[in-house]
């Protein structure tokens, strides 16, 4: 980072003895002479902060062919990617990359400061070069077909340590020239952030009744613990109390972020009265390009649903809801009723009379 030169003391106006004597002659001026130099001195410091160039924001734009949209705020490699890093391909797009023919890629931890020569040592796992440098920059200032394996090989990026839930890393792309033993100015490099999250959400703790009988069943849970948010929950069903069987049957339903329950009917489950079903739920974190492709937690304990006929107030044998007309203009036998029309007519006459009056 360039450092703006501090102003020379000999150029400070208040060094003038004559002027200073005049200013010290009143209390207000003494205060002014105390504060003003401070303010004046602060101006170049503020200016240097304001004009300081920040690193350029490169971005991973596709992972395994899936394009990251502009609203994606975090780029993840998840457990599925880490299970096969050699076949996890991604593209890196350089900002302000016009005229950049090649780039030297380094893997770094978050805020590693790899542009500083002192941080680019092999002694720590702070900044390490990726194999294959320099990389050719193709169309749209993009470096194509990089692999997660190349990042893992630097040993900076860790796909094994499950304690690193969503650990942030960076790819430093030095433009055109090998950084060598020099500090690199901001215009000479860019940084693309990404995260590695191989830890699935915890198993959901259900709050709904473990055994339910009726024509609909509810599976509700407490929010699971995960360092990242949970954008999707999944519901599974099986005829036996076996999570593997439920997984094999596939996803029955999904709900999005902030939801806390599923409700499923016997109709959706194709159950007839007396039949049973075991329901399971799991959480999927956001460590993916597409919602639902993140790390999936283990299935919850089961909820046993037993299909049964249910009844309400209208089903009471002493309550006659059947045959009730649903409209005041229709009688139970479907014939028109004059009741509402009479009331409406009276109200209309009265309203008209009042308005005229």
């Amino acid at each position: 980072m360039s450092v703006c030169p501090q102003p020379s003391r000999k150029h400070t106006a208040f060094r003038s003895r004559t002027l200073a004597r005049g200013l010290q002659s009143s209390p207000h001026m003494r205060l002014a002479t105390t504060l003003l130099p401070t303010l004046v001195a602060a101006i170049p410091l503020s200016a240097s902060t304001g004009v300081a160039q920040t690193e350029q924001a490169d971005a991973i734009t596709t992972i395994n062919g899936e394009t990251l949209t502009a609203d994606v705020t975090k780029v993840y490699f998840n457990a599925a990617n880490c299970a096969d890093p050699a076949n996890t391909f991604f593209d890196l797009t350089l900002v302000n990359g016009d005229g950049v023919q090649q780039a030297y890629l380094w893997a770094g931890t978050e805020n590693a400061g790899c542009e500083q020569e002192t941080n680019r040592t092999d002694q720590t796992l702070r900044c390490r070069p990726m194999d294959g440098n320099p990389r050719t920059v193709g169309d749209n200032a993009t470096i194509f077909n990089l692999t997660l394996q190349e990042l893992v090989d630097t040993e900076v990026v860790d796909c094994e340590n499950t304690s690193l839930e969503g650990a942030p890393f960076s790819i430093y792309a030095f433009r055109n020239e090998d950084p060598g033993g020099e500090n690199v100015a901001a215009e000479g490099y860019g940084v693309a952030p990404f995260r590695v999250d191989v830890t699935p959400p915890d198993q959901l703790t259900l709050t709904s009744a473990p055994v339910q009988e009726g024509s609909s069943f509810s599976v509700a849970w407490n929010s699971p613990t995960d360092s990242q948010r949970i954008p999707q929950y999944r519901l599974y069903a099986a005829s036996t109390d076996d999570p593997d069987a439920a997984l094999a049957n596939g996803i029955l339903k999904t709900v999005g972020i902030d939801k806390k329950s599923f409700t499923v009917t016997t109709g959706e489950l194709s159950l007839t009265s007396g039949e049973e079903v075991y329901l399971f739920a799991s959480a999927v974190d956001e460590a993916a390009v597409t919602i639902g492709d993140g790390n999936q937690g283990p299935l919850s304990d089961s909820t046993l649903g037993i299909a049964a006929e249910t009844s309400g107030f209208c089903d009471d044998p002493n309550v006659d809801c059947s045959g009730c007309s649903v409209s005041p203009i229709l009688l139970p036998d479907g014939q028109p009723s004059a009741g509402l029309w009479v009331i409406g007519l009276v109200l209309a006459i009265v309203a008209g009379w009042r308005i005229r009056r």
Partner: protein
Amino acid sequence: MAAVGLSPDTARAEMADYASKEGWSPEGYLLSLGIGAYRPDPGSSAFDLVYSGNGPIILPEFDFLLYRIPFVGPIGIGVAGGWAGYKGTACLANSAPGTCEPSSDGAKFSLFPINALVVLRIDALARRTPVPLVFSGKVGYNTVFFKETVGASKSTGRSHGFGWAAQLALELNFVNPRRANALDEDWGINSSFFFFELAGSDANSRAPVGDKLYFTGGLGLTF
């Protein structure tokens, strides 16, 4: 009722007399909003087995004040329409009679009452003495639409029957008479009032959804 309401000459004379009070415009309408407790009373435990709570019921009302009975108060007709809702747990269909074995299904019952009423407001006390109380009596015809949702099934229908109400209102003009007069001059609002109303409904022609005794309370305006 209609004969009384459609006697314009008589009504005009009475209104004019009433309006001749200093700073008081003719009082022809009443608008109120009441909130209270309503619970169908079928005469058995059928409703209580499934639903809990007393609503609440929300019941706006609009009255046309057609004729002022001397030394008593205005008489008119009105219509009120509202909503009340209840939630509960559906019973297993094989529950023993008179009992409810709870199922996993939720149940929801909604009422939409529409009441056509003849209204008598006895405001002589408020008009001729410093006591700002107004008594009202109402009788009419209640129609109650209802909808029940049990699990995925729905039932809808309508019941009707006789309805009545007795209301005690506290007119608020005495709080600040000058502003009350200004409200009348600017907006034609004669008075505002708090009210408490006891009522009954015999809307049991089909499903017994009437409540023999319920109450509402709220705020109203005459204008």
